[in-house]
């Protein structure tokens, strides 16, 4: 049994799985049930001046029968008074002293408002604070959430205000609705953040109803942009985590959030630099019990790899994430088709013929249809192996290059020395 405990910027948790600030962490009843189910921590539904929500609030995108490939919401922060939440945090902490409870906070960008709320939540014994600079809708129109999270100076200033009075670690939750997330991550670090978390939801409109022409979701026939999350956003979130992890100015722990649905996703985020992860959509889709498989799977993976502690995974793939200009132009892979398992659906041929490099030839052998890749024309793009429905039918295999490795940057500097 591997050691799944994490130390996230000084916040201790029995495992790396926290519920993200969202409906699953709306109340003490829910968070306590989640802890019973096995979650290591919970970031409480964002606290602030209680808001009013609309009905309906959620929509999901199905893809080819796969429900909740992406999830969209127009819900705001907590609609319950601060005192009610604080009382329930106190009770929950008392019952689960070894689990991590983080208070997510959002107030107007004023120093005294940050001071007031930080002091109040720390008084009930939270283990840390998460400043929500990410909510893309509703709160942003009031100058909070993503509206302040998109302006590096405001991120820095508000982090600083929280840090002026905070005694527990301050995590800054970043919005992905920005061109370069490292700009705001760096600002958070300049403001004194002990950690950053990402991502909050991505601006989105889930769809338009083709019968009524209403937006999905709609509120009495009107819609407003929402926030997108769930499996569809994982690659976007993973890139943002990786970009921060390899940025020397973002030298604080990262909590990875966005589309994490199983232990494999979690392990990928940790390899790319996250010290722990947060989950929302997967819990909303399948319930708290998914954490059991997430714990077992991660344990088995670490045991198989002979890794004693999950903390030893953190950041192990970061140095492999580089810039395009530093990739070897002369590295070569080609597709290889295994006709023994191929079911002759021809998807690979069509993909390569129509949209890649026209190098999968069809022929017959003893009356049997066969496929073969013309290696000299294959550019190793992976497309055929991506569209192939049969595991193992197409492998991408390395071919020794006859020329030495050279990156684009090396090539450009070499060629420029032969410029006129």
């Amino acid at each position, binding site marked *: 049994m591997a050691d799944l405990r994490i130390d996230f910027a000084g916040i201790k948790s029995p495992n790396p799985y926290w519920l993200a600030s969202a409906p699953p962490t709306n109340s003490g009843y829910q968070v306590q049930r989640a802890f019973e189910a096995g979650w290591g921590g919970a970031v409480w539904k964002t606290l602030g001046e209680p808001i009013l929500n609309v009905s309906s609030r959620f929509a999901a995108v199905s893809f080819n029968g796969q429900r909740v490939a992406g999830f969209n919401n127009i819900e705001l922060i907590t609609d319950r008074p601060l005192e009610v939440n604080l009382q329930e945090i106190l009770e929950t902490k008392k019952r689960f002293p070894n689990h991590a409870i983080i208070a997510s906070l959002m107030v107007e960008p004023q120093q005294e408002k940050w001071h007031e709320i930080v002091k109040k939540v720390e008084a009930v014994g939270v283990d840390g604070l998460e400043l929500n600079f990410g909510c893309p809708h509703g709160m942003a129109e009031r100058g909070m959430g993503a509206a302040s999270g998109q302006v590096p100076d405001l991120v820095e200033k508000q982090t600083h205000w929280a840090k002026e009075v905070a005694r527990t670690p301050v995590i800054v939750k970043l919005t992905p609705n920005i061109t370069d997330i490292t700009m705001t991550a760096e600002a958070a670090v300049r403001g004194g953040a002990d950690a950053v978390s990402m991502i909050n939801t991505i601006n989105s409109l889930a769809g338009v109803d083709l019968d009524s022409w209403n937006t999905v979701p709609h509120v009495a026939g009107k819609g407003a942009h929402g926030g997108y999350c769930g499996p569809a956003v994982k690659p976007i979130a993973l890139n943002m985590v990786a970009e921060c992890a390899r940025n020397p100015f973002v030298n604080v722990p990262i909590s990875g959030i966005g589309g994490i649905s199983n232990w494999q996703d979690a392990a990928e985020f940790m390899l790319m630099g996250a010290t722990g992860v947060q989950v929302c959509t997967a819990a909303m889709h399948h319930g708290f019990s998914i954490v059991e498989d997430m714990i077992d799977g991660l344990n088995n993976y670490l045991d198989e790899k002979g890794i004693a502690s999950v903390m030893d995974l953190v950041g192990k793939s970061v140095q492999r994430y580089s810039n395009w200009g530093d990739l070897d132009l002369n590295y070569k892979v080609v597709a290889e088709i295994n006709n023994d398992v191929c079911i002759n659906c021809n998807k690979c041929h069509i993909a390569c013929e129509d949209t890649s490099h026209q190098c999968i030839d069809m022929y017959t052998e003893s009356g049997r249809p066969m496929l073969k890749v013309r290696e000299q024309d294959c550019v190793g793009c992976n497309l055929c192996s991506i569209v192939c429905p049969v595991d193992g039918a197409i492998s991408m295999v390395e071919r020794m290059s006859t020329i030495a490795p050279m990156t684009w940057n090396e090539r450009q500097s070499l060629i420029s020395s*032969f410029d006129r």
Partner: protein
Amino acid sequence: MSDHLLSMDEMRQVDDYLERGFKVHYVYENLSGMFVEFGRQEEEVCLQILTADARKYFAAKLQEQTQL
């Protein structure tokens, strides 16, 4: 001619000039590909390289020339 055959042909031409003692004097690239000016004593020739594979190959050869 297929891209592959064209690139083989271009690589052969690069090899050919180098084997005949030509040295790369200038290299420039524009919308039409790469242009390499080879020189040997008074002789100057310009080779246009179109294919991606041959442009990669040429860069490797150029690297070898600088390391000689």
